[in-house]
């Protein structure tokens, strides 16, 4: 059987010169001694004697400074302590994350009056406790220094009384309330109540990335102007036509949870859902697909039509690419074999394509099974045509007043200039946005809304399912809920809280019902309504099919605009955690860029990735070639990144970048706005362009990529792969393949059972009481990065900024490695979360000269910051490369002022602003410069959990402890617990999955406490599992010889 080769980077694939040189060094930089070539350090700019002088002086200075009098600290208790608040003990409030139509029920952890962490709310049947990276990061937005702190009129600070006065004087009909999708039923009522005061007024919903084609297609075929709910968990076959449903398409948290259900593998009965993916630019969901096919964006309609005709048994027509054609046939066959258990989704904003997709879903009997019309999904309600009409009306001068909430068309509308011109013709413009964004800047009155964590409210993500919002902190600034403004302006005497309370008390069991609902955070239907389809009217289908087959052929190069998991349509741009979160697929931070395929790179950029030297020149140096993209009369220049799995004639650019610096320091000068390259196609916005020209400008621009950081090749563990993957067919054929490989590998050192004892000269230590362990199921990990952001928030992990990421100084304790395998042009992708493995025989512990890192009886690899002197020996000796060094004072924790100046950029300095620091977890030390840090298994939570059990005088249970990453994960791929307890989930997982369990770099005898479950891809190809690393085998042979 052929060995499957895994590679993280092109240098690794080619075993290039630079790669081999690079992997020898743990740190990418030379030591900062500036000795001249051939001369001793005495001749250096700062020679040793000077160094000693400085050392002596600073020691003396520090001693003098430290022996000054102790500062007097105050302990100020409450004047009047609220009964339910105990200082130092966190309270959890159920509330709801709401942003531009996205709704996730959450719990906000509030410590001493400050929300510091967000967890999913298990009581919500929709998200079931799942969160996304953006939900996790939203708590930082609360403390954003660029939030508006007071209302303004013409840019001058005023009071809300003045705003009310000005509004009363200047609001004239017809009024248009322009919002992003509103899921709140009470707010909708308030809007209607307000609008009824002004005849001829209307409410327009605008979504930056709209789903209006779906809404229109559903109207045409089902007579319903809505989006149904989807049930990926019921689907055995999932076909996605470019829908990034695990990342950015509609409700990613919900769908990830559902999708994971089909991907969990029972070893005794190995069955999985099968996911076909057709796309043009490598996406996160596409990377998780079992089978992925590439097509040009202009062919998307044809692919849909071909799939419809194949499902109907009429064969595939109009597809020239043989592999693509075979893929469509295969997908159609699978769908037909699983009638009633298939689901087709499309990410297109073209009505005809969506009509065809509806027809396919009808043909395979998805209605009532995987598509449920009994409850519609309310995440997106905007229809592009409405907004086009509004812009026209504004330009015609027929809009008297424009009230804007949540929407930001001056940034995200493709023809922003026209919108801005129209805005000037509107007499009164009022914005309720919380920041001085591109649109609010142009408005006369700005009456900022609260952050959602300061607000009251409700949301209806799905028909009949409600989620309530309650404030978790007193408003930080002089802001007011926009519903309050509307109520006031429509002459109502109640405020929004009273309104909301009335609204729900009336509907939901009075006062006590309201209290209960507020405590739970959700109101669910007593019994989930039975899933049902809707009557399908296929009249529009033939027209749609002929329309897509008549579509114009694409040009030489086509463009796809996509959203990133973190940044979205620009909502995440001002959040430093999200900017520094590496994109799952490209592993890039702090920028948008042009994604090109390896094939296009050869012809366009003159880089052949199969040529070691050229791959190195591209990969090792952060500056990338800049290309100019021209679409019609618009053009932008961006650096080009080569991403395998992208169609050769397609390029991709992420939207959401190039924001105004007024929305936050993190957003300033980061990337370019790609929304301008979108265009109207029919009545809907097409996020892409079928004919663009790409020219190389000759400039270079550095992009901070993280995948080439943190490599594994050390002299101890000289190996190239840490992944184990097999296909379902292979697994069924030989379930024990991985187990046997491990057995064979460890046989010389006592085999699996005695490896711990026989593989070492050290004694084996007792593990009484608790022993912590983690298991990561690679099968369900999507690589979305929610865990990374959750870890940031829980553990006070600093943001280091782009210049530092470029130097390989990022601080994430948890990273998600991306592995490619197979064909360079359309490779398989596997994501592997990698954090400290808490080795029981840890190489890092032995080399620390000051014992700052050592082992606990509970199996934790402990890191003691106050003892660390920063030798970095441990990081050097770590085979997993998970230790992080504080190269600069990222957190502002050092007591020396001005320590950060010149070392870190504005974004990082802004993170140590008094306001931003409110997000810090008080239970976790903020690390200062010069110490190593790494994953602690959230030891503060473990201690808290154990204490809870001790206080109740009972043994520890699974519910007492969970680590932040596991809690955030929407697909539940991380399990954590006490492995000494046979009843714990982690013990059961290890016991029930003997065939898939493996430890990374097991043969090194580092004895990790993190185990992984091998990835099983549902494909018929019988590719051998990889794992028995050649180098290790060689090593073993050598030992024997």
């Amino acid at each position: 059987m052929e060995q499957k080769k895994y590679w993280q980077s092109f240098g690794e694939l080619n075993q290039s010169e630079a790669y081999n040189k690079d992997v020898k060094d743990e740190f990418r930089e030379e030591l900062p001694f500036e000795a001249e070539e051939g001369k001793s350090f005495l001749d250096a700019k700062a020679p040793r004697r000077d160094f000693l002088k400085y050392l002596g002086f600073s020691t003396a200075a520090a001693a003098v400074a430290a022996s000054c009098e102790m500062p007097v600290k105050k302990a100020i208790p409450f004047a009047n302590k609220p009964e339910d608040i105990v200082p130092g003990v966190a309270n959890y409030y159920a509330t709801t994350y709401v942003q531009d139509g996205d709704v996730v029920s959450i719990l906000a952890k509030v410590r001493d009056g400050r929300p510091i962490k967000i967890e999913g709310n298990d009581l919500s049947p929709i998200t079931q406790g799942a969160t996304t990276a953006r939900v996790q990061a939203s708590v930082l937005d609360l403390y954003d220094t660029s939030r508006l702190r007071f209302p303004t009129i013409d840019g001058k600070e005023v009071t809300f009384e003045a705003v009310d006065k000005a509004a009363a004087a200047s609001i004239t009909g017809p009024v248009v309330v322009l919002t992003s999708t509103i899921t709140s039923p009470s707010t909708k009522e308030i809007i209607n109540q307000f609008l009824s005061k002004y005849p001829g007024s209307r409410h327009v919903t605008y979504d930056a990335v709209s789903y209006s084609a779906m809404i229109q297609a559903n109207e045409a075929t089902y007579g319903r102007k809505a989006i149904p709910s989807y049930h990926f968990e019921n689907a055995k076959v999932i076909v996605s036509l470019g829908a990034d449903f695990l990342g950015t398409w509609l409700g990613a948290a919900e769908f990830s949870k559902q999708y994971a259900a089909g991907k969990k593998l029972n070893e005794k009965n190995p069955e999985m859902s099968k996911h076909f993916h057709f796309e043009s630019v490598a996406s996160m969901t596409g990377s998780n697909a079992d089978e992925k096919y590439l097509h040009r964006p202009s062919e998307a309609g044809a692919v849909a039509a071909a799939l419809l005709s194949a499902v109907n048994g009429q064969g595939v027509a109009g597809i020239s690419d043989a592999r693509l054609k075979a893929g469509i046939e295969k997908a159609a066959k699978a769908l037909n074999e699983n009638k009633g258990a298939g689901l087709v989704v499309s990410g297109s904003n073209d009505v005809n394509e969506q009509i065809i997709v509806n027809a396919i879903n009808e043909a395979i009997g998805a209605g009532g099974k995987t598509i449920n019309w009994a409850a519609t999904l309310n995440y997106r309600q905007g229809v592009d045509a409405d907004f086009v009409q509004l812009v026209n009306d504004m330009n015609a001068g027929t809009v008297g007043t424009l009230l804007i909430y949540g929407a930001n068309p001056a940034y995200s509308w493709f023809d922003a200039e026209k919108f801005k011109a129209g805005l000037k013709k509107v007499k009164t413009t009022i914005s309720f946005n919380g920041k001085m964004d591109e649109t609010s800047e142009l408005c006369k009155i700005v009456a900022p809304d609260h952050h959602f964590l300061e607000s009251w409210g409700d949301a209806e993500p799905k028909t009949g399912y409600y989620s309530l919002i309650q404030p978790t902190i007193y408003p930080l600034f002089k802001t007011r809920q926009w519903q309050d403004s509307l109520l006031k302006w429509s002459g109502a005497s109640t405020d929004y809280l009273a309104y909301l309370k009335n609204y729900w008390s009336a509907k939901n069991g009075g006062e006590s019902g309201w209290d209960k609902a507020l405590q739970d955070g959700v109101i669910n239907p007593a019994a989930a309504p039975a899933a049902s389809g809707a009557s399908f009217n296929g009249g529009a289908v033939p027209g749609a099919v002929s329309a897509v087959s008549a579509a114009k052929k694409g040009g030489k190069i086509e463009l796809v605009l996509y959203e990133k998991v973190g940044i979205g349509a620009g909502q995440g741009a001002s959040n430093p955690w999200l900017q520094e979160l590496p994109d799952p697929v490209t592993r890039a931070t702090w920028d948008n860029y042009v994604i090109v395929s390896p094939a296009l790179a050869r012809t366009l950029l003159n880089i052949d990735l199969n040529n070691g030297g050229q791959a190195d020149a591209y990969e090792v140096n952060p500056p990338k070639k800049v290309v100019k993209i021209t679409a019609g009369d618009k053009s932008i220049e961006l650096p080009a990144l080569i991403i395998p799995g992208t169609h050769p004639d397609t390029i991709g650019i992420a939207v959401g970048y190039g924001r105004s610096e007024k929305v936050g320091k993190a957003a300033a000068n980061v990337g370019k706005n790609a929304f301008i390259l979108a265009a109207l196609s029919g009545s809907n916005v097409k996020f892409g362009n079928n004919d663009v020209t790409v020219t190389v400008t000759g400039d270079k621009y550095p992009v901070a990529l993280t995948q080439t950081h943190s490599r594994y090749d050390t002299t101890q563990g000289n190996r190239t792969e840490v992944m184990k993957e097999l296909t379902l067919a292979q697994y069924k054929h030989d379930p024990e393949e991985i187990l046997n490989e491990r057995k064979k590998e460890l046989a010389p050192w006592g085999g699996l059972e005695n490896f711990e004892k026989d593989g070492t000269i050290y004694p084996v230590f007792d593990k009484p009481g608790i022993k912590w362990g983690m298991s990561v199921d690679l099968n369900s990990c999507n690589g979305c990065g929610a865990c990374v952001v959750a870890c940031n928030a829980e553990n006070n992990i600093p943001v280091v900024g782009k210049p530092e990421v470029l130097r390989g100084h990022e601080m994430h304790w948890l990273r998600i490695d991306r592995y490619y395998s197979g064909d360079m042009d359309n490779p398989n992708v596997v994501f592997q979360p990698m954090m400290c493995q808490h080795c029981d025989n840890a190489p890092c512990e032995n080399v620390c000269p000051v014992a700052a890192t050592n082992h606990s009886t509970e199996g934790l690899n402990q890191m003691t910051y106050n003892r660390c002197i920063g030798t970095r020996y441990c990081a050097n000796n770590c085979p997993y490369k998970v230790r992080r060094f504080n190269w600069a004072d990222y957190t502002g924790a050092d007591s020396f002022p001005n320590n950060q100046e010149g070392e870190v950029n504005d974004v990082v300095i802004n993170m140590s602003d008094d306001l931003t620091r409110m997000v810090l977890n008080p239970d976790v030390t903020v690390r200062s410069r010069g110490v190593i840090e790494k994953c602690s298994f959230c030891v503060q939570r473990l201690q808290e959990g154990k204490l809870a059990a001790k206080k109740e005088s009972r043994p520890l249970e699974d519910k007492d402890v969970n680590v932040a990453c596991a809690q955030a994960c929407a697909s539940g791929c991380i399990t954590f617990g006490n492995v000494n307890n046979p009843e714990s989930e982690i013990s059961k997982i290890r016991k029930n999955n003997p065939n898939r369990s493996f430890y990374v770099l097991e043969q090194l005898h580092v004895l990790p406490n993190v185990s992984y479950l091998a990835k099983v891809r549902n494909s018929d190809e019988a590719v051998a599992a990889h794992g028995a690393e050649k180098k290790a085998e060689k090593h073993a042979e050598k030992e024997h010889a």
Partner: protein
Amino acid sequence: MISFRRIAKASFVSALLLMGSVLLNPASAQDGKTLFNTNCASCHKVHAKSTGPALAGVEDRWPDKAKLHAWIKNSQAFLKTGDKYANDLYNEYNKVAMNKFEGILDEKQIDDILAYIKTVPAVDPKKVDSPDTGAAAEGDHSLLFGILTLILAVVSLILLQVNSNLKKLADDREGQPAVEPVAFWKNKSYIAMVTVVLFVIGGYLTSKGAMALGRSKDYQPEQPIYYSHKVHAGINQINCQYCHTGVYQGKQATIPSVNVCMNCHMGINEYKGEPIVTEDGKEINGTAEIQKLYKYAGFEPGKPWDPSKAKPIEWVRIHNLPDHVYFNHSQHVKAGQVACQTCHGEIQKMGEVKQFADLSMGWCINCHRTTQVQFKDNGFYSIYEKYHQDLKSGKIDSTKGITVEKIGGTECQKCHY
């Protein structure tokens, strides 16, 4: 030592009580003690007035047991029955309503508490307050040792001089040419000796001083109000937890908010106890200090109090730990059953609070090395099966027991994370 003695004394008394109660009143008084401490002790003493009346002899004052039960369960409801004694009592104690215990205490539990109250002997408060004489007797011998060392040093110096003089005389007699005498301050061996001695002393003082940096044992700052723990916790026997409510729940014991002070001080507006004298001999006017509290609380005696007018009191923080140390009160007090006095000293005898321990890491670790966890009593430790077996089989010395260290209590990440 002192605290051990106290613990011994306390356990002796309680053992006596236990035996007594076993004889008199099977089981119930023992339960009653726990119930009393959790439910009643914050407002009632057995033999002294507190927020509420002294409870000794309560059953004699309430001949109708049913009424007494009703009164305890829901005093407000009982007042409405118009019972004269109850209403008088209510008025006497400034109309401070007693908490409802309906649903919290059942009939049997109330009986247990009443049974317990009967068993508590009257204690002369002076006795509790009497200073412990043990400490003075032990004294500090370092001065004595110092003088002895000095005398010995001088003697040895003289002897050395005598020796060298004698040698010189002997040399003279034998006619050997006398070596030019070297003055002793020029004598190299003396200089070397002095240098070594100075180096050792200097090094010792420097390292001791360096280690003491940032430590503040005996820190006793002046507080905005002269709050005497001696008066509250010592003489009036208020349970620590009544004010430091967080001590069982979270990492902070919490300093009480003004409304907690006012719970009692709405009624207690003058100090009538023995004169309060500071360590410097200054006399404190207790009533004036209560007036300071009223100022913070925005309360005027005789008028209804509006708690929203209160301003917090800015106490000076005495016990400070570095930011990289995690300390949790409930871990020690609830899970570990450690007495407050172990770390805070005889707080019930302090006027203004003084830092008792140096709060150094060595101090923490030493205690963790010797203190036993509640190994048999706390269900959490049932998972340490091996230790339980070893204890039974005698492999682990049962007198030493399972210390905090044994279950990993001296590992870095128990306190630093």
